[in-house]
């Protein structure tokens, strides 16, 4: 049981304002030096291991995409289209942001990639429109958490495989909770906007003429959206590839159609992109080295034994599970937790008569929230870095949104019908 000591070392270093990735890796190295006979260079091997995961390549692509869209006027024109439909509402841009997340949630498998793109694309525009930047960042990050819950999602598939339920059922089960999260988030964003006085951007609904004119001006942008979403939906490419192809399309739009782009913009966007990619990838990589130690020490097994010893009542069991997963989710990546813990907990789930599909959605929603929680919530880190927002501002500005997410978790946990309504 050396792992609690290592986690403690890490938390102390966090408090001293050490770079997060160095703090995590310092804790990792302390395990190799003080607690284990395993050769030390394996620590570096585990650091590198996470960077070789192809799905993470989507992160720089979507950051680059969002940055280029902001630089070239593509984002501005897209929002002008959105404004036609939501401009009359208080907090219209915040609602648009969440709506776009939900839409992307249906095609992209990665909440990191989605939040990266939307942050770069929408946060600057929201700030120009008078929104607080930290609030805009919090809206984007919260919205991105819907991604893994709305099908298709990698987490839904992984859970289906380890818990032996049908992938189709998991996909159906994710729809209603995903929509519910979107609605609750929109309500919170609306209340905050109302209180802050983020007024509607337009007094009246647009005229037919204005609608046609705006749409006509924005056709390349709409084409881009169709290419990304349609491209993934209609058999053409993976989300990672979609990111790269979309970058090519934006470059074409910027250079050829709108002619607002220059080579300096591309160089600047590339620089911004690799800096943010490095900042967040190093934390992900160091955390995955830490996750290796937790695996080696069978930490998840020990926690699973603890959870499964509380089998008296299924509501108590679910509550305890949620608490432990929220804590664990702060430290290690969600899918790793799914794979290791679910098989160990499943017998108890069956014994308590909890529907395995419902249980899966509870876990996945819970782990999604882990992406936001400090210290190593990856979505929060990425969004704070991209929007240049302090973590403390992010947390205080987003409080009501996070409350909505938390409420979603409670509802999903204690109202099984939300998950099971569409599952036969």
């Amino acid at each position: 049981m050396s792992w609690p000591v290592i986690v403690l070392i890490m938390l102390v270093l966090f408090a001293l304002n050490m770079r997060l990735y160095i703090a995590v890796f310092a804790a990792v190295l302390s395990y190799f030096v003080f607690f284990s006979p395993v050769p030390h260079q394996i620590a570096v091997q585990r650091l590198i291991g996470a960077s070789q995961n192809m799905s993470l390549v989507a992160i720089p692509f979507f950051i680059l995409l969002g940055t280029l869209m902001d630089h070239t006027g593509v984002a501005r024109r897209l929002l002008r289209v959105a404004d036609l439909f939501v401009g009359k509402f208080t907090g219209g841009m915040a609602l648009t942001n969440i709506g776009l997340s939900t839409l992307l949630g249906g095609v992209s498998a990665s909440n990191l990639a989605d939040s990266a793109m939307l942050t770069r694309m929408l946060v600057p525009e929201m700030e120009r429109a008078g929104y607080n930047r930290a609030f805009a960042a919090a809206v984007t990050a919260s919205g991105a958490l819907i991604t893994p819950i709305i099908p298709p999602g990698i987490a839904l598939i992984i859970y289906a495989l380890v818990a032996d339920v049908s992938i189709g059922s998991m996909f159906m089960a994710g729809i209603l909770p995903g929509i519910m999260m979107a609605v609750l988030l929109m309500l919170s964003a609306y209340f905050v906007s109302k209180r802050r006085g983020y007024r509607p951007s337009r007094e009246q609904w647009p005229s037919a003429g204005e609608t046609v004119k705006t749409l006509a001006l924005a056709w390349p942008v709409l084409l881009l959206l169709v290419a990304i979403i349609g491209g993934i939906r209609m058999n053409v490419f993976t989300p990672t590839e979609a990111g790269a192809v979309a970058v090519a399309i934006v470059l074409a739009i910027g250079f050829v159609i709108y002619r607002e782009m220059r080579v300096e913009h591309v160089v600047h966007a590339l620089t911004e992109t690799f800096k943010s990619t490095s900042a967040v990838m190093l934390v992900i990589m160091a955390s995955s080295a830490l996750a290796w130690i937790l695996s080696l020490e069978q930490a998840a097994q020990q926690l699973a034994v603890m959870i499964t010893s509380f089998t008296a009542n299924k509501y108590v069991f679910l509550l305890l599970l949620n608490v432990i997963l929220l804590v664990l989710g702060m430290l290690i990546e969600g899918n790793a937790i799914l794979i290791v813990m679910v098989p160990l907990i499943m017998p108890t789930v069956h014994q308590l008569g909890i529907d395995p599909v419902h249980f899966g959605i509870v876990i996945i929603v819970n782990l999604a929230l882990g992406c936001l929680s400090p210290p190593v919530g990856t979505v929060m880190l990425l969004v704070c870095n991209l929007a240049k927002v302090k973590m403390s501002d992010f947390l205080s500005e987003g409080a009501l949104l996070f409350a909505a997410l938390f409420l979603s978790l409670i509802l999903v946990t204690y109202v099984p019908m939300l998950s099971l309504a569409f599952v036969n």
Partner: protein
Amino acid sequence: AFALGSLTGANAATEIKIAYENNPGEPVDQVMHYWKDLLEKRSNGEIVLQLYPSSQLGAKKDVTEQAMMGMNVVTLTDVGFLQDYEPDLGVLFGPYLTDDPKKLFDIYESDWFKEKNEKLKEAGIHVVMNNYLYGVRHLLAKKPVEKPEDMKGLKIRTPNNIMQIKSIEAMGATATPMPLGDVYPALTTGMIDGVENPISVLYGGKFHEQAKYLSLIGYLTNTSLWIGGEAFFSSLPQETLDMIHETAHEAGVYSQELAAKEDAKFIEKMKEEGVTVVEPDIGPFREATRAVYDQFPEWSPNLYQTIQDQLK
């Protein structure tokens, strides 16, 4: 958890970590539990196997490297993978090498393999189990495949292994390497049209929810090896080592029995779930893939013939 008993010569139990990419409950996991129980019983709890399914300790290459650095870890690998260390071994992963898995396992006992084994040892690899049957690899696709011509235009997922890529291409399909975890969504979107693997793995990945034709082309009898690092294993007392090898062999025999049983079981299950099972004449497939054996200049001369003579 603070010491490797055997490295320090202490009298604590010998702990060995067993790492594999497959998930809990799959045949690999079942065989490892069988081995673990067998070894613990026979050694009176002196030799303890700790199981790490689902790539918890890293990808196959990484765990192999951990073993070679001296860690007490054993991992599932195959000759397709070990050819990086000893190119000739790749031939045992060739298409339609033999009809009879038993003969294939005899090769692993032959002088030819003993020689290869020495070379692996020099590279730091210790073969712990050499009679593991991962399964016979078939094709699950969105279309029935009766003859190689039916493969034309199909995008088939393969592992990132040159021998399997060449075999699938030789049959006329387009090989599309990607991680197994990406296969389900890739089938959903039509990015790929099919996937090859042993039937238990195909069923375990639920790929039949998306592709409804199982063609029993059986192009590869996928034998596997469990390997550790020479650095760790050479530090064990001979008695311990013998006990590990003996029980490993018994676990290997169990894997062969299990593979046959599981194949029959999962074919039935797939049929129940609406999959059409196609049994093509494999003659034309064998012909189509023969040329693959000529594409490896790094092999010893006449390697294919040497192996065929061994197989007689």
